[in-house]
């Protein structure tokens, strides 16, 4: 697929999402704003899992680092949204850098368990400091504290636009990154790390970079989620929120730029529809995970790439 057609396809998605806000009914309008923020989280996850081939079970730690970095600054630091957002993103960068230094000493299954354990420790830490974080119950960020540069982010239109801007930013970063030499090296590491090392690349530095970028984007999504929807709670740090991006990326197609969004969209509506029928809606997530690993390890966009659009990034 030629470079210009790739660009048209990806920019087309962003333009379409921008235009949709004028036609969607209120309920789906709100959903789509939520989906775009969560898809930004999935885009971050995809950089580490899809492109670098490192399966993390601890990304909720980064998502929560962003969310709490932002929310605690507003709640206890009295900060306005802009520096609070920045604090959230920085918190994510620091946490992912530290975890990377430890976890990247391991590979494969050990990497998965190490990330899982540290994320669990982070979740428990949030519960432990319940005086500050209000633990499981979480806390609401008041409407007056959510005005960014004069724009009230609790208004549906402003919220949709902010979500769209965030998603567009990380989407374009991801598209740009994977076509740069840095991104190509990440893909090479995924395919054969030994060979990349033999060719003289510093694979540790590349993996470290990938994990920090991935963690920082996830933290940005977490911070934005807290700010846009006005709530920070410990459940966003739980294992479930580490599993979700994995699920979205697997469903959409790991190692594709479009995949995270497609996967998040499908899974969101699948769970939305099924939670109308049963309270055990996570059952759907479980079934989809098993079916995906069995029958479509490439995901939706991955299958498309294999069959129709060869060369899709």
């Amino acid at each position, binding site marked *: 697929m030629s470079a210009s057609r790739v660009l048209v396809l990806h920019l087309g998605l962003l333009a379409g999402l921008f235009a949709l806000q004028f036609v969607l009914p209120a309920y789906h309008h709100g959903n789509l704003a939520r989906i775009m923020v969560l898809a930004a989280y999935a885009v971050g996850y995809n950089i580490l899992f899809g492109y670098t081939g490192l399966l993390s079970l601890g990304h909720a730690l980064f998502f929560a680092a962003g969310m709490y970095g932002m929310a605690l600054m507003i709640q206890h630091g009295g900060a306005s949204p802009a520096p609070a957002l920045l604090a959230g993103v920085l918190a994510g960068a620091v946490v992912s850098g530290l975890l990377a230094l430890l976890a990247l000493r391991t590979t494969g299954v050990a990497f998965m368990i190490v990330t899982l354990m540290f994320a669990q420790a982070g979740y428990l830490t949030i519960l432990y400091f319940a005086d500050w974080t209000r633990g499981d119950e979480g806390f609401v960020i008041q409407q007056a504290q959510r005005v960014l540069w004069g724009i009230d982010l609790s208004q549906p239109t402003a919220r949709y636009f902010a979500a769209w801007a965030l998603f567009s930013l990380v989407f374009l970063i991801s598209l740009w990154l994977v076509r740069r030499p840095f991104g190509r090296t990440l893909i090479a590491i995924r395919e054969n790390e030994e060979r990349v090392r033999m060719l003289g690349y510093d694979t540790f530095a590349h993996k470290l970079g990938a994990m920090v970028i991935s963690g920082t984007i996830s933290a940005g999504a977490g911070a934005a989620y807290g700010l846009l929807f006005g709530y920070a709670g410990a459940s966003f740090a739980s294992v479930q929120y580490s599993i979700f991006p*994995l699920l979205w990326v697997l469903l959409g197609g790991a190692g594709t730029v479009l995949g995270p969004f497609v996967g998040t969209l499908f899974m969101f509506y699948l769970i939305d529809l099924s939670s109308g029928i049963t309270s055990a809606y*996570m059952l759907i997530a479980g079934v989809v995970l*098993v079916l995906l690993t069995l029958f479509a390890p490439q995901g939706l966009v991955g299958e498309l790439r294999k069959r129709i659009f060869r060369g899709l990034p």
Partner: protein
Amino acid sequence: MDLGPYILLATLEGAVTAAVLALTAVGLSLVFGVMRVVNIAHGEFFMLGAVIAWYVANGLSGHPATGFFAALIIAPLLVGVLAMAVDMTILKRLNYDPERTIVATIGLLYILQQGALMTYGPEARPVEAPFNTRIALPWPEWGETGLSFYYPWGLSTTSYKLAVIAAAALVLLGVWGMMTRTKLGLVMRATQADREMALAFGIPVERVYAMVFGIGAGLAALAAVLIVPIQQAHYLMGADPLLLSFIVVIIGGLGSLPGTVVAAIIIGLSDGIISVFFSPTLAKILATLLVGLVLVFRPQGLFGTRAA
């Protein structure tokens, strides 16, 4: 109570935890050792054991012991058969690829957990113990008349708790005997040592894998049946045993059965004593950090010698 009797009590409670934990963790360790599969759904097999025990005990009328002993046989068998079916329909088709099997067992975790929520419901329900005599324990004291014993208030255990410890020890001995003395164990160890070579020698590796996965899940279910008269059966009860088993298996050295049992005893006993001094959340934070750091800096486990 003085500190002495208090610690004895904590040790007794810890010994019950350790016994149940050892059974659960040996199941996880067996599966990892032979199949190189990290079974995230192990805690849910534990939960299923407890839930099935409740159904069996409630379905049978008569003396509570009848229901309990029936559950002790039925629950592990059912869970074992279910696990074998999972192995043959899912894990086998993934070729036991380590990363894909983890994703699949995460999916399985949600299927089992939410399936239990839909059928069994969100309540916690107890199973009656078959026997439950309170046993007061004496404590030595130096008095004016020399050494004497008295019974401090609150220092007691039940016959059932002692029976749990004994039963777990018996089953572990049985597992050890199976691994070292029987043909099945020999075949399992051969598969663990070298899968390709075992295949070349005509060992039906696929059947061995199904067997191991079934036994591993069955051990977790058995542990759950033993504990369910003390705790209650609940659809979310699988999370803690899973985490603790992970800790035990990793500290004991991945795939090493004796290491697993030693680690289970240490963790189980210290769990009871630590929670006297620390808040349970802080204890869990320290434990999860310990597991992470052990994996990073000593992947062979604290007691293991060979590489995992």
